[in-house]
């Protein structure tokens, strides 16, 4: 699965996520509910992908 860092080229992953969620809020505020929902869905998927990119360290847990 390609992560957000790859999709945005060299990086800027979190800056892009903040921007997308801000656009989702602004789209909703200016009456574009469908666009807002679409932007939210896209941003959420990219956020999960970015989380998986950064969550690489093994957790210090044993069971």
């Amino acid at each position, binding site marked *: 699965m390609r992560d957000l*860092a790859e999709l945005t*080229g*060299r*990086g*800027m*992953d*979190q*800056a892009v*996520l*903040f*921007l997308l*969620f*801000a656009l*989702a*809020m*602004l789209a*909703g*505020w200016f*009456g574009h*509910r469908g666009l*807002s*929902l679409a932007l*939210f869905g896209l*941003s*959420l998927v990219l*956020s*999960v992908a*970015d*989380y998986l*990119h*950064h*969550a690489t*360290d093994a*957790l*210090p*847990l044993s069971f």
Partner: protein
Amino acid sequence: MLTPRLAMTLNALGLYAIAVILAAAFAMQFWLHELPCPLCLLQRVAFAALAVGPVLNLRFGPRPSHYALSLLAALLGAGIAMRQILLHIMPGDPGYGTALLGLHYYSWVFVCFAAALLLIAAMLLSDRQFKEAVEAPRLGAFGTTAVFLVVALTLANVASTFVECGPNICPDDPVSYRLLQ
């Protein structure tokens, strides 16, 4: 039972709470000179995501689908915060950043998202807010200010993150602003 008007007022209060949390994160970043790590930034991203549902509720009136967006965002944020808690769970681990009132930022974030999940579930218990149609919600200065405060803080995070990381992936343990070097 919540009327649509009361539900929208509570949604506006939720936006103010998110604004306070995002502002507190900025305060720690600039006053304590603690650069946010990638997981810390993702937790802030989750707070921005949490704000989308209330913004839609204020603009279009309360709908279950708007609360669903907030539930998804709160689950994401709680999951990310829990992972960072587990990264520092071992005895003797100093944690990342300065502890406030005994808890690090990511621990407070988990508490906040857990509280958000409970509060959103409590809001969903009231059907009256959905039965009374709100054709053209009157937002007022209270709601409008809340929306633009959260949007402004989210856009400020765009700028801050770009200054910290530049056009690159943020380092796991940042020590300086890349664009200010």
